[in-house]
């Protein structure tokens, strides 16, 4: 079993798991932090941005006048922003059978994976994940296509030149793999490959493994995945939350008894408690409005914004903000607000029960009704005529490089009365603000990340007790800025297996068991002898037939080929815990002692077989993996009939 790690970003993972005969991609997150190296895309012509000086190297030898601009000591690429894609060279993406998506933030690279790579598989996701993911992709495409840039800067990527560049540009890795945004057509094509699943629904993959999504509590429709065969279980935990905001609570118990648990998507802000941040957000907002300033909240169009609006709904009356308008501006604002109200079955119990009242589950419906919250697709059109200050504006993109937020930064940045409040944890706010310097407006950083923190995850792991944990290497050491905070890392026994971009891990567990069926006629020919009330044993000689990951014991052909001596030799090579059946059946071994051995052995050696027709069970000392490979091999089995009870051993 192997794990190929295609992304180094711990919260935007993209891993491929090879398990039994299947190749499963777990999430395909798109690392958008690369856009911070680019100049913002203004919706309205910005004299300030257009007048930025070009960057020239100190000795004047490099002059990429068209490509690089300088602002407040930092250099930015003047081009359509580009994203850092998951690694595409590590393995042939056309071999991927399925892609399991855990939440809408972790599927933004989907078109890059499913299109133009030869991918022919299926994508599995829940309905809200698909729909909201579509909105986010649509929004991204609109943001980019609305402000087309003719030129594409590539010269700076030249290794020789990049080496000479200052600051973060010099250290950017794999810049040649950075790609511009996909098109709407590619989005549609990618999303057409999605098959919808519901929580706890079991999906069979080629008869070899079964995958099933579990609620992860992080966002609408967000899921963790269980990937299991009859005897092995892998859990994939990505972006989970124990906070009781709007989504269904996290299903923890189903993660128990995993052989391997792949852990990604922990909080990016381990020291910032979401409740405290939400409080900070509200008090800063109220303080600015009271002083007559405007508040700008760069955010994604789905997710935390629902919680922010709900919190404000309760807060505005308390803080005497009743008349202040709230604007939500996004190409998909309307759909996002409406979608949240219709996915009732994916909401937490509290919100679900409102639907039966009937009331909208989220209070933003009331904010819209009472005209306190207004939403627009863009700053153009109706918005400009109804715009009233002071106000609060929620808009994207949180990177401040594209979207309507760029306009508000240009508009409000000069006044110290205004405040920008960052709530999304994905981008460093200092980097986001860099091309707007010097900036007079106040900046407040209240990153709200509801995903599991280290304390919660240690508790979770203690509870579910996986045999092995795999996680991004970032989780195995304290954050660089707080090297002494040993509480901000995973400490497990055995220690977790760390991965980084381009790692290939051999997962440390060997498959020991395989399920084998026995044909009815063969089962009928067995002569179990009762050795204890309710327990019978029989020997069986059969041919093992294996096809489509299904193994069957068939009767030995009438004229069996002469057993080669080599095969015989194998028998004494087997672990000697259970010797040949003969002495046992002849009563040479006392029954109790034998059953005790059986108990002991069952855990580590004996393979459990199931008879197709009558639910009788067999214990076999064979190493099945070998036998699967060597079809039609003779095996000796010791059978035990469970009689009427028909239960597993």
């Amino acid at each position: 079993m192997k794990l190929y790690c295609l992304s180094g970003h711990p919260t935007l993972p993209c891993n491929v798991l090879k398990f039994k005969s299947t190749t499963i991609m777990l999430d395909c997150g798109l690392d958008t932090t690369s856009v911070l190296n680019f100049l913002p895309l203004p919706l309205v012509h910005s004299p300030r941005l257009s007048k930025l000086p070009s960057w020239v190297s100190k000795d004047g030898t490099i002059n990429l006048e068209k490509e690089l601009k300088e602002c407040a000591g930092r250099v930015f690429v003047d081009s359509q922003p580009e994203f850092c894609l998951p690694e595409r060279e590590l393995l042939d993406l056309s071999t991927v059978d399925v892609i399991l998506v855990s939440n809408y933030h972790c599927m933004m690279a989907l078109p890059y994976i499913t299109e133009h790579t030869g991918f022919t598989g299926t994508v599995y996701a829940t309905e809200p994940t698909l729909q909201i993911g579509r909105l986010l992709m649509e929004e991204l495409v609109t943001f980019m296509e609305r402000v087309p840039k003719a030129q594409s800067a590539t010269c700076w990527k030249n290794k020789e030149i990049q080496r000479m560049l200052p600051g973060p540009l010099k250290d950017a890795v794999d810049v040649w793999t950075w790609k511009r945004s996909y098109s709407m057509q590619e989005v549609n094509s990618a999303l057409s490959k999605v098959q919808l699943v519901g929580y706890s629904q079991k999906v069979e993959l080629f008869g070899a493994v079964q995958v099933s999504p579990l609620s992860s509590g992080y966002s609408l429709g967000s899921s963790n995945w269980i990937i299991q065969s009859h005897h092995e279980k892998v859990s994939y935990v990505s972006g989970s939350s124990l906070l009781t905001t709007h989504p269904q609570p996290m299903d923890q118990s189903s993660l128990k008894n995993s052989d391997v648990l792949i852990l990604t998507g922990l909080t990016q802000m381990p020291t910032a408690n979401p409740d405290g941040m939400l409080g900070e957000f509200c008090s800063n907002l109220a303080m600015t409005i009271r002083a007559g300033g405007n508040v700008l909240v760069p955010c994604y169009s789905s997710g935390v914004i629902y919680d922010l609006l709900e919190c404000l709904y309760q807060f505005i009356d308390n803080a005497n903000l009743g008349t202040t308008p709230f604007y939500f501006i996004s190409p998909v604002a309307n759909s996002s607000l409406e979608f949240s109200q219709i996915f009732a079955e994916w909401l937490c119990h509290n919100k679900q029960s409102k639907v039966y009242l009937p009331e909208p589950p989220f209070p933003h419906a009331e904010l819209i009704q009472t005209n306190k919250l207004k939403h627009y697709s863009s700053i153009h059109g109706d918005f400009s005529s109804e715009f009233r200050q002071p106000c609060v504006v929620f808009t994207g993109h949180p990177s401040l490089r594209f979207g309507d937020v760029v306009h508000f930064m240009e508009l409000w940045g000069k006044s110290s009365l205004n405040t920008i409040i960052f709530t999304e944890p994905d981008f460093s706010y200092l980097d986001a603000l860099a091309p707007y310097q010097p900036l007079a407006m106040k900046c407040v950083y209240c990153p709200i990340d509801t995903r599991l923190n280290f304390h919660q995850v240690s508790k979770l792991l203690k509870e579910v007790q996986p045999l092995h944990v795999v996680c991004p290497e970032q989780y195995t050491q304290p954050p660089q800025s707080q090297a002494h905070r040993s509480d901000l890392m995973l400490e497990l026994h055995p220690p977790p297996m760390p991965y980084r971009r381009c790692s290939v891990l051999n997962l440390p567990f060997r498959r020991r068991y395989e399920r084998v069926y026995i044909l009815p006629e063969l089962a009928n020919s067995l002569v179990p002898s009762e050795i204890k009330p309710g327990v019978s044993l029989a020997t069986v000689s059969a041919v093992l037939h294996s096809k489509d990951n299904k193994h069957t014991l068939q009767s030995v052909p009438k004229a069996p080929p002469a057993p080669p001596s080599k095969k015989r030799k194998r028998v004494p090579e087997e672990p000697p815990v259970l010797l040949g059946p003969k002495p046992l059946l002849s009563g040479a071994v006392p029954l109790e002692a034998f059953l005790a051995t059986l108990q002991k052995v069952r855990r580590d050696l004996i393979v459990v077989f199931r008879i197709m027709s009558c639910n009788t069970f067999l214990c076999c000392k064979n190493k099945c993996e070998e036998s699967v490979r060597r079809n039609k091999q003779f095996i000796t089995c010791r059978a035990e009939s469970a009689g009427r009870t028909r239960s597993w051993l």
Partner: protein
Amino acid sequence: MDADCASLLPGVCAVLAASGRSLPDDTSLEKLLDWFTGLTEAGGSLLEACPCLLEFISTVVLNTAVDPGVLSFALRLTGLMAATEDGYEKLQERSVLDQVFQLQRWREAGLWEDPCLRIGWILGLRSMLQHPKALCFFVQSDFIDPLLQLQTDASLFVASAANQMLAHILLFFQPVPSLGCNGVDKKEEDDDDGTKRASAAYAAALAAISGYLKESLVPKKYTALRQSLQILKLLALLLAAAGPPLCDGLLQTAGDPLEDLVAAGCSQLTLPLMDVLLAACSSSGFNQRVPDQRVGRLLSSMLDVNEPADLLHAAAAFLRRGHHSDVVNTTRAVRILLLPLHIVTGQTLLGTNATADGRRSSAVEQLKCKTSCISMTCVTLTNAPRIALLPLGVLPCAPDLIVTAVLSLLRICSGVSSSSPPGCGEVCRNVIGSGKVQKCALEALTALDGSPGATEKTSEVFTVLMQYLENPDSDPTVLHKSYQAFVKWTGVCTDLSFVTDQLRLDLVELVRRRACDMRWEVRDSTVEFLGQLAGLRASAATTEGTASDALLGARCTTPLLKEALQDAESYVRASAVSALAKSLTHGWQQGAAPSEDEKEIVSRLLEILSQDTEGFPRRAVVQYFASWFSSSASPSSAPLLMRCARSVLSQGSADLDWEVKVHTLELAQLLLDEAFSGHRGYRKVSDAPHPRAAVSELTRAPRASPEGAESDLAAAVELGVVAALLSGLVDCDRPVGLRACRLLMALRDAVCPPGPPDATAAVATVSCELPGGGGWGEEIRKTLGVESGEGGARVSVCEALRSLGLDERLDVLTRSSDHVHNSPLSLLQDILTASAAHTRADTQPGEEVIVDCY
């Protein structure tokens, strides 16, 4: 005892003797005993006053079928009656005492199993043991052994009572010739037979108890720990109050077992052991004697036990008792207490060679466990302020280093510390984010403001507190405590260079943001903080250049507080009103004319008083005006204030909340004080418990109507003071009525002193309006017997003050509202009534059943 009670008592005794089950409630017997105790203490003899009681006791103790509760009552009553030598002898004559306290009988009747009876037995004997004869009886009856057994009784109450009783015997009868009045050998010259017997009895008791102590102090096995614990408690009780001979004797007896106990090092016994040793220490200290060397040695070994947590508790107990003359042990205790702080923060509190300390490694081990780490750190922190005030000689470091250590702990707790001491990462992890440690540390920091050298740390303290106040994750309690610490340290900050521009800007920004916090507790603490800082300003001797002024001037504070007057939470509005009062006090004291801002505030406050739906803000508003009035240099010359006073009086006295009314009367009192303090007859009403004292003193010297009273009274009427007082007088809430009554009496004594009314005096012409329409006016009119007119009526104030019967009203009002129900007579009646009802209920059901059958 009054005749009514005396006549009812025999009936009650009969009821009790017949069956105790029909009592009105289970406290009746206790109440009866309280009553009897009161009678005995007042010097009466129960035997003489109610002979029926003796009868009752004799009957009851023979009847073992009586409810154990009643039996227990009889036992205690017997003890009470035998508390005097007289009573004792009378009871002895009729051999009641033997009957009552004879254990054998109770055991045979199977009643001894009932803890109720056992405790009755102990308490009865305890009441009786007030004279040597009782002691002789006690010893001769061999009650010591059963009592010692009861010390480990299954019932905690019995065990504790037995312990108290044992201590009482040894302490009450201890031979102290010079001091004692109870000592059995107090009259040496009068060496009669009785005294000899009593001495012998005491010696026997002492021998028995000492023997028991010696025998049972060291637990034979782990399960006997409770006995040791009880004995240690007894020893602590005894040593704390025993005179030198007894004390020495006890220490002699218990010395060896105590040494064994200390050597055993049992965690559960650490604190009781410390109690005993410290009691031994202080009793010798009290008597100015050289402390027993053995006790000192034992104390030293207690401060040397192996278990770090026990050690810490022992040291804390030692320090709490304040035996600071014992330099060696104090130094040791301080080092023990500072060790956890030393380890967690890495500050070299104990010097650099502390690493060599053998205790360190075991303490580190213990600190690695989260719960014990938190509890040990908290013990250290609680004691830190006390340690910092100790003389330099016993401290291992400068006291300001303790402040530094607490600050560094606070930094670690909030996770902002940039490093952890080497090798203690695991320990530090236990305190990161711990709210309990944060609160303890902040409390310690607040208390450390007065420690020597602390002022040097002011700037560092401000920095850390700002971090806490800025931290979005700080719990509201933590924020509150941070604010408290901030106020305290600002109060001691005299060097304004600590108040940097950056600090001021940060603080202004912070309080602005916190005043908008989502949690009302935080908004409330913030508003309160603003008020307290302003309070510092007002109370400072110089107004210029105080740290609080430099930090937050009124220019920043007032707008925030005005905003908070509109807060959605009533507590915050109330705090804002109080804080405004504090922030404006300074201006009032100066007699400055009210600014536009202040006028606006006043109108908003009056709005709150008339419209706010919650009581707290309205109470605060009335108090605001009261404090304005009291801090104003010349209130009567402030027209705005006087105008407001009038509306506050009229609205406040009509409020639905009784506390608003009481505060309104406080304002009325201030107005009266202001107007009449110059008059000879006027006495300021204090909240003294005996209002009659002030009044009766006045009546001794009748005076003629004082001059100028008329205009002052007319002004008081005009302001609505008299109306407020009159309406308060007939209020249905007792505290309101009481206060109004006292004030009216003070007014009466000032304007129309006792003596024949002089109708021609100018003051008699002042009248006030009694509104019509069924309110308080109606009630006053009824009391005065004035004809009720259509609209209202005017009455002469003096006339009214004389005829309202204020003295009688005061009598009624000063008694608690349930005084009628609490009288012994009512108790006796209740018992009789309940019994009658019970008897009826007993007989009727049978008949009813028959009726039902048909």
